């Protein structure tokens, strides 16, 4: 049965199904219960599922993430919500030194079936401490998977797919996407979490994005179509392990690529994509791969400044036009 639902509702539905169907699964994080979730993702679930399974945690990011790791070692399958990526740095030691290492460091005796969800990104006038885009940092860490749902279908489906994994999976929900809506199966089903997706086929140039930059790229593609440029848009979906094949197939067709990433340009994940294309499809390239990234500045509060600091359809369009 299909039904129009938001990205937020799709995640909520997936949470409800997962927690109902598996006693090992529970949600833990700051204000996920009584408050209903900082982004209202878990609104109502406390009443439905109770405080054991919808577990409010104190302001102790390092410890409740570590507790998620420990619980995962002992038979549970926790879904930990870090309210936003901005606070995840407080838990990064547990993530890098424990969650990502325990399987290997223990010689394969342990594994950590843990899911960590967090809101990410800017464009909400939250200023320098609440607007980070650090997906690229997480994608650098061996031992974990990194997912970036950009659609309603992926928002719910990726969470259920992540629950089929034996290792830690990090899901980055771009905060500007929570209100987007689409027709979706009421009963959420797991989706593939191996491949990138071509969201718009095109022949002239490949626009590569993830999270919020997918829609921005699609908007740019529409504007470009009017100008007679047929852009292909790829949604990476999974940053780690990265599906290079889909990217290279596209570049082999278009011979041009732009990576769109809201993160600060230097050291962004966009650099990784560019380097991979260099390594795997150099001879296919008619022009150097370009990057449209965030400006290298702590995010300013003022709307006109923040808008200027982030990739926009218009900036993508002009970057494309520079190719032709």
């Amino acid at each position, binding site marked *: 049965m299909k039904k129009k639902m938001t990205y937020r509702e799709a995640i909520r539905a997936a949470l409800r199904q997962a927690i109902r169907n598996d006693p090992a699964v529970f949600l833990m994080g700051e204000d996920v219960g009584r408050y209903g979730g900082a982004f209202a993702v878990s609104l109502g679930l406390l009443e439905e599922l109770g405080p054991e399974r919808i577990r409010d945690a104190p302001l102790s990011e390092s410890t409740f993430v570590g507790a998620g790791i420990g619980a995962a070692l002992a038979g549970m399958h926790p879904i930990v919500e870090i309210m936003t990526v901005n606070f995840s740095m407080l838990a990064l030691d547990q993530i890098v030194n424990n969650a990502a290492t325990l399987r290997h460091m223990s010689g394969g005796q342990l594994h950590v079936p843990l899911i960590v969800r967090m809101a990410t990104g800017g464009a909400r006038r939250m200023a320098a401490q609440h607007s980070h885009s650090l997906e690229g940092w997480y994608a650098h860490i061996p031992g974990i998977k990194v997912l970036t749902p950009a659609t309603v279908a992926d928002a719910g489906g990726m969470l259920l797919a992540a629950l089929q994994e034996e290792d830690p999976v990090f899901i980055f929900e771009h905060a500007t996407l929570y209100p987007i809506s689409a027709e979706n199966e009421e009963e959420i089903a797991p989706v593939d979490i191996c491949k990138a997706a071509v969201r718009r086929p095109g022949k002239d140039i490949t626009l590569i994005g993830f999270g919020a930059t997918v829609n921005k790229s699609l908007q740019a593609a529409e504007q470009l179509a009017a100008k007679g440029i047929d852009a292909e848009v790829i949604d990476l979906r999974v940053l780690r392990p990265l599906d290079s094949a889909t990217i290279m197939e596209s570049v082999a067709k278009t011979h041009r690529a732009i990576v769109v990433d809201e993160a600060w340009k230097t050291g962004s994940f966009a650099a990784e994509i560019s380097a991979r294309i260099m390594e795997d499809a150099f001879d296919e390239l008619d022009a150097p791969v370009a990057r449209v990234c965030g400006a290298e500045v702590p995010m*300013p509060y003022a709307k006109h400044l923040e808008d200027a600091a982030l990739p926009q359809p218009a900036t993508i369009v002009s970057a494309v036009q520079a190719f032709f």
Partner: protein
Amino acid sequence: MSTLAKATEIITGTETSDREHALLLLREMLRIRRFEEKAAEIYTMSKILGFLHLYIGEEAVAVGAMQALTPEDRIVATYREHGQALARGVPAKSLMAEMYGKATGCSHGHGGSMHFFDVDRRFYGGYGIVGGGLPIAVGLALADRMQGHPEIVTACFFGDGAVAEGEFFESLNLSALWKLPVLWLCENNLYAMGTALERHQAQTNITFKAQGQGVPSSTVDGMDVVAVEAACRQAAEIVRKTGNPFLVELRTYRYRAHSMADPDLYRSKEEIAEWQTRDPIATYQTRLRGQALLNDKELSEIEGEVAKEVADAIDFAETSPWEPVENLLKDVCAPEAPKP
């Protein structure tokens, strides 16, 4: 408690100086209340964006505490810092302009509501990461100690939620271990967003936690501006005299939602109503009237002046210029200095 006793002395006197001071406390609380009521209105008009955390209900804390500080003292606050900034004397117009995101704002529109800065007034900012300001306060006090000024007090405001963060304990320990003049001000409004203190702390007695880190402490009724002033003067005195840290827990309550985004589902209307009977401004007005220190005429004068100040702040914000987009990358780093 003793500070309450001590407190009442301050007020019962009737020489003008006391009366003036009493009216000043009232005025300061009203400035915060009216400023924020307007800010909330303007937020609904989408002229103020992002997060807006209102202090309404907690005014006695910032106003009372600020009385204990000298111009040399330093202040570190949280994202809920409108009250502290106003009480410290940061001009209302530069705060309103900041919330509008204008170039004339106290942080040039870079910070917004959560990140007020005014170095001239030693206001070292609103910090948005819970607990993130505490180590900064330790460092400010360390600098004063190392530069031979243990009499300068660094006052650090933080909430009850922050005591769940490890940084709270680390910072208290460092302040005591290194004998640093920090006045720790815990604004215990009973909630961290939607999480009540007893649902995030097994031991809700914050003074026990301070004791475990070697920091002496007191607790005061944060709805009583006179008691707050007395307790903070006493504490600041101790810090100034000894050069060592002291923690004051201020029991208060937030009348509005955590932020404009908060549906406020986690507490009862009754609870809020009960606390409203202890409104720091209303109760203080009654008290002053009872002591014949305030009458209708004086009150409406004050209200009028405060209303004008807020209206002027809004005019200023409305008419102020935006920072040119060309300046986007300005102030990320120092302008290139000549190299060796």
